[in-house]
């Protein structure tokens, strides 16, 4: 059982009122007189002289009948036509995808489509009768519920005006699903959608009583810089840029390539594109630079995709010191990982003060441990990450060679052992020894730990407890992966730039070891109609407080630098990331609003943004497809008034009864 109008419980106030009347029943002041005789006769006189007094007894009857009639009438649920203030809520979905940063419709006077949409929605909200609650959803990667059932119009306007464009991918379906969830709660709810039409939405999925479409933006033209890449040559760079033009008429403009820090383009190319044409432009002989910005200078309606950034994929190679004989396989694997190897023979090489600065990390393989016992070696080994590879042929002091029991491997999660299974590997002999304090086994083969990882003096340490030559690991694909991950983990791997990412997306970053703090610094933001502030965004942290390897990409397209800092606030390094808007937003292949399906058929039966202001003010409901909104907002229910009338009649009845013969 449901109570359709729980608010009518306010009539229950009549019960304490009745109770109060009984309690406070006015007792007539008692006056003693000699005799009632004359008063009785007087009252009889009065009665006789007033013919309608004879009806007094039937007055109560009349009132009872009236009360019953009112009750019956109320049960028949009378409604009269009128502009009732209906309580039906309004759910507003605002499309804030990147395409909404395009130009507004002609003559609207707004800076962009988003502003135009917000203006028209806010005006329409102001025109609503006040008790209607308003909910606002901003579509984005995940829909954001900005307001829920808010009746204060100022709050609604404030929330609407706080909506900023979202350059990432927009999940339209999720926004509509959320809107549907809100609409289901209340009867007669209306759904308002403010969009520029490049919003794929099937509104039939939403069970709202009415729909209202606020159109913004125009069916314009867009020339998009779809791709831009740099090629680092020996002494000059090459570049290629792909342009696509969407529109009804040909586009003309220039493509300019501007190196980092320069104000003048290094190269310019005029172009003329036919509608729908895609063309690749190549450039040669560009002066080397850290990065390049390519931009289209043309008159188009959407400029979030008019600029792109690229940087040469020149990885910074790590440097490792190989102490001992090493092996061909190891050298090859590390080389694949982008590590430059310098070999040192401990017998003949003694490190000096400058050695530590020349290497990023050290791998000890096939070296005589006693030769590493000197102060200089110990100092070097203490100051850099070290990877020891033990050999069963000459185990370290305190260790012994064993054979694994079987070939089952147990891999613990660790950056070094990620994607490594040792499944098909056969290891003949493993050294069982104490790897040192703070080392944990991260891979166990046949019951014997084969890999230890840990840290000493804050530097990572890795121990491989078997000689790769004692196994067929070098012949497996696991080996270069293991080597590359070890190299990366030890901090000497190729720390290349971060590449390109979509705005508001997620990116995995291999952090340098020793990173305590990191931040995004905006180098340049793509020219957009939104004002771009000089932004420094603090990197996200994990629950333990360390910098997280998974970061959110900054929301505004542009070129960003990810800078990592060590414990003493020393800058450990920085990498570039080019952030672009979701590519689909610029691909204006469809006519706006073609993808929007309104229930009841018909794509566009809503008002144009330019008119919405005037219409919103007058409060007339715009009929969009087939909605049964007449069920709620067009009628005023009379039942509450009849209930009040009944209560008044009961009060009158009470008075008549109370006066009794005194009437």
């Amino acid at each position, binding site marked *: 059982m449901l109570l359709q109008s729980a608010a009518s419980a306010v009539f229950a106030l009549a019960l304490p009122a009745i109770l109060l009347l009984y309690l406070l029943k006015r007792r007539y002041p008692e*006056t003693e*007189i*000699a*005799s009632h*005789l*004359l*008063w009785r*006769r007087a*009252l009889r006189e*009065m009665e006789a002289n007033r013919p309608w007094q004879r009806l007094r007894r039937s007055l109560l009857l009349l009132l009872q009948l009236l009360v019953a009639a009112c009750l019956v009438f109320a049960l028949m649920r009378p409604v009269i036509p009128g502009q009732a203030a209906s309580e039906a809520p309004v759910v507003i979905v605002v499309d804030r995808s990147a395409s909404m940063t395009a130009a507004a419709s002609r003559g609207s006077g707004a800076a962009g489509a988003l502003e135009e949409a917000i203006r028209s929605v806010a005006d329409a909200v102001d025109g609503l009768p006040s008790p209607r609650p308003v909910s606002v959803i901003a579509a984005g990667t995940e829909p954001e519920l900005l307001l829920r059932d808010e009746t204060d119009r100022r709050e609604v306007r404030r929330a609407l005006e706080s909506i900023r464009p979202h350059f990432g991918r927009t999940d339209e379906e999720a926004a509509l699903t959320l809107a549907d969830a809100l609409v289901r709660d209340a009867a007669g709810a209306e759904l308002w959608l403010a969009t520029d039409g490049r919003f794929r939405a099937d509104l039939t999925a939403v069970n709202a009583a009415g729909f209202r479409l606020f159109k913004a933006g125009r069916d314009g033209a867009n020339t998009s810089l779809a791709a831009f890449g740099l090629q680092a040559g020996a002494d000059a760079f090459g570049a290629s840029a792909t342009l696509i033009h969407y529109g009804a008429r040909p586009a003309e403009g220039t493509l300019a390539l501007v190196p980092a820090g320069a104000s003048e383009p290094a190269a310019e190319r005029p172009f003329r594109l036919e509608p729908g044409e895609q063309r690749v432009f190549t450039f040669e002989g560009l002066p080397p630079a850290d990065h390049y910005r390519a931009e289209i200078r043309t008159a188009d309606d959407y400029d979030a995709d008019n600029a792109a950034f690229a940087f040469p994929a020149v990885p910074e190679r790590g440097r490792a010191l190989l102490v001992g004989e090493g092996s061909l396989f190891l050298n090859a694997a590390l080389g694949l990982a982008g590590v430059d190897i310098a070999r040192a023979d401990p017998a003949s090489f003694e490190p000096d003060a400058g050695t530590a600065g020349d290497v990023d990390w050290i791998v000890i393989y096939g070296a005589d441990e006693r030769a590493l016992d000197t102060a200089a070696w110990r100092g070097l080994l203490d100051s850099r990450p070290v990877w020891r590879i033990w050999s069963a042929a000459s185990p370290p002091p305190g260790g012994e060679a064993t054979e694994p029991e079987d070939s089952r491997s147990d891999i613990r999660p660790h950056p070094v052992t990620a994607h490594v299974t040792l499944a098909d590997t056969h290891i003949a002999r493993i050294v069982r020894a104490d790897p040192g304090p703070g080392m944990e086994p991260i891979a166990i083969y046949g019951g014997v730990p084969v890999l230890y990882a840990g840290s000493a003096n804050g530097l990572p340490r890795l121990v491989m407890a078997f000689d790769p030559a004692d196994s067929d690991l070098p012949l497996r694909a696991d080996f270069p992966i293991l080597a590359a991950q070890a190299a990366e983990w030890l901090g000497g791997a190729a720390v290349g730039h971060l590449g390109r990412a979509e705005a508001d997306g997620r990116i995995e970053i291999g952090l340098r070891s020793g990173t305590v703090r990191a931040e995004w610094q905006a180098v340049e933001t793509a020219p957009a109609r939104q004002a771009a502030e000089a932004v420094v965004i603090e990197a996200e942290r994990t629950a333990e407080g360390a910098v997280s390897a998974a970061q959110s990409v900054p929301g505004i397209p542009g070129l960003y630098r990810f800078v990592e800092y060590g414990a003493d606030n020393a800058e450990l390094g920085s990498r570039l990331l080019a952030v672009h808007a979701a590519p689909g937003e610029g691909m204006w292949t469809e006519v706006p609003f073609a993808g929007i399906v309104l229930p009841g058929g018909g794509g566009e039966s809503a008002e144009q943004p330019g008119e919405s202001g005037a219409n919103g003010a007058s409060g007339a409901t715009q009929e969009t497809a087939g909605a049964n909104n007449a069920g709620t907002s067009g009628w005023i229910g009379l039942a509450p008034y009849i209930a009040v009338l009944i209560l008044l009649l009961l009060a009158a009845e009470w008075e008549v009864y109370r006066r009794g013969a005194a009437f």
Partner: protein
Amino acid sequence: MSADRNTAADGRAGAGGALVRPGETLLRGLERLAVSASGRTRGTQQGKRRSGALGSSLEFADYRAYVPGDDIRRLDWNVWGRTGRAYIRQYWDEQETDVTFYLDVSRSMRFAPGGADSDPATWPDTHKLLYAARIAACAGYAALCGDDRAAAVRFASGIEGRLHPVRGRGAAHRLFAFLEQSLGPAADPGAEDLRTPLAVPGALPAGPGVSWLLTDGLYASGIEETLGAFAAARQHLVFVHVLGPDEWRPALRGELRLIDAESAAAKDVAVHEQALRAYGEALREHVGAIRRRCAELGFVYFAVDTSVPLEETVLVRMVRHGLLQRQR
């Protein structure tokens, strides 16, 4: 004899009668007055019916034309000699009149606002019973001064007490004592019908005389029949209608719950203009009925408002109305 009966009747002989005893001025005034025997003033003899009042005293009253059948001894021969017309002489009756005072002591008479019914000392001068008793005292004194005999009866729903006729000014204290005793508390609330106390055998005097009925007349029924009973008992009745100012002109206002002093019944009345007018109508009707009956029977109706000072009522109004007359 009568003394014995009276001792039994008034119990505390000589108990005082301080409350009902008229003041000095009143006493002086009353000594010169007497109760009217028949309620007609001098010189208004009306017809044969009244002739019973004429007696064989020596006091010449009036001439009357001779009608065959009259007593020839009464013919005034001097007038016949001079005018040739026959006239009969009439004389005032000097027979002793028995004046009986019937005092209504029912609860409606006793009613004192504030529930002080039981203590006569606290009653205001407008108290109906007190006023009526005082009137009875005054008229009784006048009767005794006028050489009439005075008796008194108090009744509620039955005869409560009786003072057998006394004669002479010296007996006034006994009358006063009896009346004072009537003020005392009584359990009997009274009856709705006046016949209940008065239509019983022995209630009314045996011989002809004058009776004064002092009551507030608030009886639903039986008044007209009782008056007829008095007439049948050859009494000339003076109906002294004693009502308080609140009953002549109620000062009540608003919505009240009226409690009847006699029956203790409660009645919710919204007293407004219309209700007051209706009350006035009812009162006029009630009074009018009693007046009519009195007129039919040749009785006297005398309305008393207890707010009028006693002296004025007794010495001025009663005299003017013919209830009391100057002694000859």
